[in-house]
């Protein structure tokens, strides 16, 4: 029983995916039914995950069957909670959008759950090939979802670009795995870690090359320089809800695996990549910022700004370093995880809200289309403002606290000049985020877009409001709002600490 307990969340999602697939054979179910069923499975899984989130544990159940390829620990569980939460919120925020598009049917929700299943397994993976399979389950599901938008001709470009480039970069990953296997005769991360600690010099060359190739995959998936160019077109062509899903949840899943590998297994050699990562950070920040200010379409601007956020996250990665047998600056791992939460909330909020706004007939794509939104739908405009503040790192939102941690840790590790660059990127980001706020608030609505009687009392709106409340609470904490013992910033940090520490349980 006890070992099985840890498997429940992932299995629930898998069963849910199959169940919805079977359901979709019948014509009589509506999109609403699918959303309900998917949510039920998601909430069950979330319940089981959350119940364990504060416990510190690390187990490898069913050894004879799973052969140590999967680890069930607090770290993975922490990411599971985030991933499931991200999926639930995507589903609920998108409720309105799904119901106003004819092309969403039963399979879609099945695929969504399969994608989640892949990501969860990725967070548990302790073996390179299993990680690859999990990554591809998730990726292929996302490829399909990107192509769902049959009303937009750009989907072909989006799906083709993403599929070809993604598969191509997957080949790099496999080559890296092969090289590592060639040197170490294992693909299990724990054994790899033992190999690294007992060998040095020439024995390590293939490992270094292999890991560098795997690093490329990582950079591609999180859209860092030089693999950032697909983001704009893919995000643009995908259905808006899927863009939200990719920008927030999928990105977190990628981080979960690589963060585990870095902290748990290859920590002793991470200093090797410091120079290359710092160059990548500089270029990611500069190019991301430049792309973001030059966009005229809101969706593309948000996509480009997500590149900049990748740059901030890499800044915390570089702050991790290894000295005298242990990781110094382990605090920056907490910073990464906190920033991921902050980014999950704010990205999901902005992209999801944008999708909710366009879910009715009048399409909003460029800045001009957002004119006067505050007068038409003041509530949504206010929510959007909160999310944009959070992305820009304005105090009183969770994005500020996230930036605070990441930058503090980067300075603490001695990367002051890189941090100054990141601050400059932040200054510029204020411009493009505030431009959208200014457009929403300070212009009258264009005449063509008449004020319809919007019905804002629906699931999507509540979900958005929920995310907005979390965003503000996470930034203000409870101490300052008359000392309500609710969500405290320290509690979140405490959770990230427990999660990271569970990696080192032997």
């Amino acid at each position, binding site marked *: 029983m006890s070992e099985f307990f840890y498997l429940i969340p992932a299995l629930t999602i898998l069963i849910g995916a199959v169940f919805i697939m079977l359901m979709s054979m019948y014509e009589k179910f509506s999109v609403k039914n699918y959303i309900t069923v998917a949510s039920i499975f998601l909430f069950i899984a979330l319940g089981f995950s959350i119940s364990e989130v504060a416990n510190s544990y690390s187990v490898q159940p069913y050894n004879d069957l799973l052969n140590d390829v999967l680890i069930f620990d607090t770290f993975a569980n922490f990411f599971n909670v985030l991933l499931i939460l991200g999926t639930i919120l995507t589903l609920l925020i998108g409720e309105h959008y799904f119901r106003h598009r004819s092309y969403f049917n039963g399979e879609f929700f099945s695929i969504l759950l399969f994608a989640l299943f892949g990501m969860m397994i990725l967070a548990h993976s302790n073996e390179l090939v299993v990680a690859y399979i999990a990554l591809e389950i998730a990726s292929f599901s996302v490829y399909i979802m990107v192509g769902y938008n049959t009303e937009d001709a750009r989907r072909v470009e989006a799906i083709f670009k993403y599929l070809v480039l993604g598969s191509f970069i997957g080949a790099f990953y496999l080559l890296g795995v092969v090289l590592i296997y060639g040197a170490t005769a294992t693909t299990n991360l724990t054994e790899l870690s033992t190999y690294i600690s007992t060998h040095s010099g020439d024995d390590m060359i293939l490992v270094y090359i292999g890991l560098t190739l795997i690093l490329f995959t990582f950079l591609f998936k999180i859209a860092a320089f030089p693999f950032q160019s697909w983001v704009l077109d893919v995000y643009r062509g995908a259905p808006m809800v899927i863009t939200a899903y990719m920008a927030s949840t999928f990105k977190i899943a990628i981080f979960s695996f690589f963060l585990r590998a870095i902290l748990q297994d290859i920590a002793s050699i991470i200093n090797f990549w410091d120079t290359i990562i710092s160059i990548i950070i500089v270029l990611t920040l500069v190019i991301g910022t430049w792309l973001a200010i030059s966009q005229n379409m809101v969706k593309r601007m948000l996509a480009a700004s997500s590149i900049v956020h990748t740059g901030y996250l890499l800044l915390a990665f570089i702050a991790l370093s290894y000295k005298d047998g242990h990781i110094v600056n382990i605090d920056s791992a907490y910073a990464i995880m906190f920033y991921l939460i902050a980014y999950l909330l704010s990205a999901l909020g902005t992209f999801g809200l944008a999708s909710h706004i366009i879910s009715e007939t009048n399409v909003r794509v460029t800045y001009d289309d957002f004119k006067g939104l505050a007068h038409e739908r003041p509530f949504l405009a206010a929510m959007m403002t909160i999310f944009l*503040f959070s992305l820009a790192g*304005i*105090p*009183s939102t969770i994005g*500020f*606290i996230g930036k*605070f*941690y990441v*930058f*503090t840790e980067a*300075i*603490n590790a001695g990367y*002051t000049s890189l*941090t*100054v660059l990141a*601050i400059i990127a*932040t*200054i510029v980001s*204020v*411009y493009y985020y*505030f*431009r959208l706020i*200014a457009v929403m*608030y*300070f*212009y009258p609505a264009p005449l063509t877009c008449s004020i319809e009687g919007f019905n804002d009392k629906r699931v999507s709106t509540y979900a958005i409001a929920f995310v907005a409340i979390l965003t503000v609470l996470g930034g203000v*904490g409870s*101490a*300052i709002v*008359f*000392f309500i013992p609710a969500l405290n*910033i*320290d509690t979140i*940090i*405490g959770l990230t600490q427990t999660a990271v520490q569970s990696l080192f349980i032997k």
Partner: protein
Amino acid sequence: MSSDILSFIIFLPAVVAFGLMLTTKDVNTIRNIAFLTTTVILALVLKIYIEFVPSAGMQFVTNVPWIETYGINYYVGLDGFSLTILMMIAILIPTSYLLLWEGKTKGYWINMLLVQTGVTGTLLSLDVVLFYFFWEVMLLPVFLLIGQYGFGNKVFTTIKVTVYTMVGSLLMFIAILYLGVAYHNEFGQWSFAYDELMKITTIAYEAKVWLFLAFLAAFAIKIPIFPLHTWIMETYKNAPTGAVFLLSSIMAKLGVYAIVRFMIPIFPDIYVEFSTWFVAIGLFGLIYFGIAALMQDDIKRMFAYSSASHLSFISAGIFSLNSYGINGALYLIIAHAIATGALFLLVGLMQEQTGFKTIKDLGGIAKKAPIFTFIFAIMLFANVGLPGTNGFVSELLIIFGIYEFSHTLGYISALTVIIGASYMLWMFQRAILQDRPEGSSELVMRDLKIKEIIGLAPWVILVFIMGIYPEIFMNKFEPTVTHYLNDILHIGAAK
């Protein structure tokens, strides 16, 4: 209760604002409740003012953990400096409500309330991160005010002012983080409280100069100190009266206050070393902005330059390293806030009614609106520093301070006061007193209403009391200044 009273003052307006936002749409109700809130705060601040013990250092302190992991505390408290400015804010805001009474919308009042939370929080926080928090937050309502209720090219102005001030703030942000890390490295634990950060000894000289400049960037932009002033002309011209009032009378002063509260105690040696430069820059700004004000035709732009000119004078006083200078600067902060605040509000009224924006279009106001002219003249004289008004006392003190600092600069500062008098009086003569030329369009202008007169009356009284009998106010903050200077010069010499 007595220790939580500051938190109550800080958060009451925000809570009321959110409550009003959700419950009602009626503008009159909102405005009345907002006004009531500000008067309640005024009463509480008066209570604090009476209970305050001048010689006792920080009082009414609340210090509870906010983010324990990084030693960030919700740490508020007040001493002579903050008390004086708190009193000033508490008096200014309700009065400004009375003058802005007519024709505003729901959003306007809610933003005004939120600003009050922002400025009071900024003023009272003693933890640098908390300070940064409020410092940024207080800008957001102003951003919305300008963008929504401004004139001319308001969207461009909003973005410009936001990005401009954000540049300064974020530079300060990185300096704060650097200080925190330095503290962590030296003492092995995290803290961002200003009195803890003062203990840092390990930062290299080079780095310290950069940190000092990063802090200065944030405050110098807000004040503004030459040459970081380019945003204010356009902003003051295009912004609605309320926002101009807030920016010039309150937020600019908070920039000066922040220099005194955080910058100088944390970097006393750099302050001592560079003080000549800053006094000189301050005096240069005073002359430069004064001459620029002489040449303006747009009345709001003229006041923008005049305000900048006075603030340069204040910063020269702050940097003069002695109790005359700092006392004078603090006194001028109050005097200037009252005079400029009143003048901006009166000019706002005048523009709303006549529709004229430039000095040469105006004229003949004195005949149409005698009470208006009378109060306008008092505020103008206070601003110029006529003996008997509070402006005189403070300018005299600053000139003493600068003279003690350096005789040459002292002579220069004494002479520059003439510039201030000349542009102000010239403007007054042309815009208010002079008869309208034959054949020009009819001037539409009503005199002040009774409500507005009641609002302005305390200010007028204050101008004279502060001018004739300064001791009663000085006594509240002079001990703080003396202590403060002793500490700074002592620490500065030790480093």
